[in-house]
């Protein structure tokens, strides 16, 4: 077992690794991240995750639900640290996995991956408490400066493939129905909670029936993690390309109208208080027209038209972002052109929210040809041909709850009576 594998095993047990190992790990990680562009190219299949916030045991639950690294290809959209009690173990484990399996895990920067924010919201104090000095915090912050600002997922399938398509004859009615599933929501036991076919979305509300009474659920409902072997056999001439998905922590910036402009930023610095890099990590979508200013006096809000215009101009079918707590774990907005993914269940150990991860399946319809991994080549030409709104890829959301309370030595839920005045 290599030192790295030993470190991974130790961190998986939620035990910090010695300071000298952290230093070495951070050094390796920096070398690796330095090679990545500001926008990392990622091929589907991939599982996209939102904020973690130091909730180590819930990160373990995420890996249980979504599949382990390197079996599952992961993309984490930042905010690994702060708020939770185990920022250190969570971030170092992700970093170890990155160094060990660089092509199977992508980490991009969140607004909490910053010196200033971590000194206020917990990570700095945690490092100080666990090591007695700020050295480890300093090493980690240097890694933060090298994290990519975004990722571009290509090669995602337009339609979700249920496991049953692999043994159902491709010509039958049911398999066409299966192939037309746009959104599928699974619980942590891989049981389908809900499914939405692509065609019905715009025409009418999906039936609000209980999962058990839904007729589509007569089909086998246990489905393994995507990307575990099945390739599509979608026949015919219909394209099964789900378009490209841009992943960023916060959102868009008025300074950025093309993905290439993100690529030109100088990212290797502390997150600035203003400018494009700041906006990508901080901004939020809102039900407004165009751009707006946050009432807080700093930060942009962007409306549906901004997202649709950006997606069209950059030939994107979807933007995936994190940054905002959503009670159901994910929230699609603006006619499915942007989604917020939140992966910290029972946030801050008291919100009672569920978490979600978003799985995009691989589009195997082009005979296994994978577009080049780090860029845009060939995407532009396709845009010329198709000026309509791109259909987003099939989305499989796995929704999960917090890891059991007793596994983490958390304070009791029942408040202790005190003689407050």
């Amino acid at each position, binding site marked *: 077992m290599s030192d790295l594998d030993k470190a991974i095993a130790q961190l998986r047990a939620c035990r910090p690794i010695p300071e000298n190992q952290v230093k070495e790990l951070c050094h390796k990680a920096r070398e690796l991240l330095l090679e990545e562009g500001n926008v990392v190219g990622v091929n589907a299949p991939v599982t996209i995750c939102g904020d973690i916030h130091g909730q180590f045991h819930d990160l373990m639950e995420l890996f249980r639900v979504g599949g382990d690294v390197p079996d599952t290809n992961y993309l984490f959209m930042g905010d690994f640290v702060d708020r939770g009690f185990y920022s250190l173990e969570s971030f170092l484990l992700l970093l170890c996995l990155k160094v060990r399996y660089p092509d199977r895990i992508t980490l991009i920067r969140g*607004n*909490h991956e910053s010196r200033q*924010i971590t000194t*206020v*919201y917990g990570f700095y*104090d945690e490092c100080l408490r666990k090591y007695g000095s700020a050295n480890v915090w300093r090493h980690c912050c240097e890694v933060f400066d090298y994290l990519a600002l975004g990722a571009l997922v290509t090669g995602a399938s337009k339609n979700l493939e249920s496991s049953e398509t692999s043994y159902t004859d491709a010509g039958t009615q049911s398999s066409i129905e299966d192939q037309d599933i746009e*959104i599928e929501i699974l619980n942590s036991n891989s049981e389908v*909670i*809900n499914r939405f076919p692509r065609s019905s*979305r715009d025409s009418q*509300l*999906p039936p*609000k029936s*209980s*999962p058990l009474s839904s007729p589509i659920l007569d089909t086998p409902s246990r489905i393994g993690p995507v990307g575990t072997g099945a390739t599509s056999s979608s026949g015919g001439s219909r394209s099964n390309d789900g378009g490209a998905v841009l992943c960023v922590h916060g959102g868009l910036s*008025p*300074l950025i109208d093309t993905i290439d402009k993100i690529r030109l930023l100088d990212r290797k610095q502390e997150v600035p*208080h*203003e*400018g494009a890099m700041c906006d990508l990590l*901080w901004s939020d979508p*809102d039900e*407004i027209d*165009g*751009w*707006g*200013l*946050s*009432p*807080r*006096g*700093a*930060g*942009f*809000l962007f409306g549906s038209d901004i997202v649709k215009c950006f997606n069209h101009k950059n030939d994107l079918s979807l933007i995936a972002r994190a940054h*905002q*707590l*959503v*009670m*159901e774990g*994910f*929230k*699609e*907005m*603006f006619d*499915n052109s942007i989604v917020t993914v939140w992966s910290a269940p029972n946030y*801050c150990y008291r*919100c*009672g*929210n*569920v978490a979600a991860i978003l799985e995009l399946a691989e589009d195997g319809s082009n005979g296994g040809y994978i577009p080049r991994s780090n860029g845009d080549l060939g995407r532009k030409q396709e845009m010329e041909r198709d000026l309509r709104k791109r259909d987003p890829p099939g989305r499989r*959301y796995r*929704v999960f709850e917090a890891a059991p309370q007793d596994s983490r030595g958390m304070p009791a839920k029942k*408040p*202790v*009576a*005190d*003689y*407050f*005045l």
Partner: protein
Amino acid sequence: MASANGSFNGPADTPLPVKDEATNSVTQAGFKITTQKLPILKAGPIEEMTDRLKITPPEMIFGDNCVRIEHPATGWSIDFNAFDALDRVDKTGDAMLKVSYSKEWQQNRQKQFEDIKEVVKPFDWSYSTDFKGTVTSPNGSTFEPSETLIPLALLKRPDPILFFDDVMLYEDELADNGIAMLSCKVRVMPARMLLLSRFFMRLDDVIFRIRDTRVFIEFETGEVIREYTSREEKYDVVKQKLAMTREDIPAIMRDANRLTQLIEISDGTLERMIVK
């Protein structure tokens, strides 16, 4: 599941916790004290609340939580819940604070984006409230201004606590610029009870606010004393005071109890009524 604006949310069908399990209650000397604790609201109820409030609710909104004191014999009650508290937050934007780096941010923005001017839905996003509880009093009796203080000596006695709860009503991280929270504690002893509803807000490098409402009831006499105090101090002033100590400053800056010792009361009211 698709809402009118075309947004699509997660499984609204997940079963809600049974409300009975989330409710705790005790009746002592004719007063019934009830608390309810549930997870934060889901997208649907948040949309409804937004429509009714006309402002965006805090990020963590425990809209189903409440603390209620009732006197069934007279029908009197006082309620503490998130909606009523948020309804008292300034909705005009007149009392709006700005984050510490706002000036720097604005100056830079104005150079580049003169056309982006509109502040989206201005309101007091620090969710500062002077909520003192919602009173229902069928016989028309009301709180009157009073000089009678809450008898601290009686509350300092180690009487057995028959019922205790601590209920969060809302919390917001102010987009990583600090914290705003409203919570409600209650303890019931054999002869009297105390409720403390506390709004605590820290806007990093700008300001601290602590607004407390205490409701004291002496069961024997039916005397209800309600005290409201407001504390406010600049961040730098508090930081200066803490600089002399050797304590864990970030921890104290999260601890409203400790901060009350450092920040003077700037405003307040004292009221009294008899519920019998």
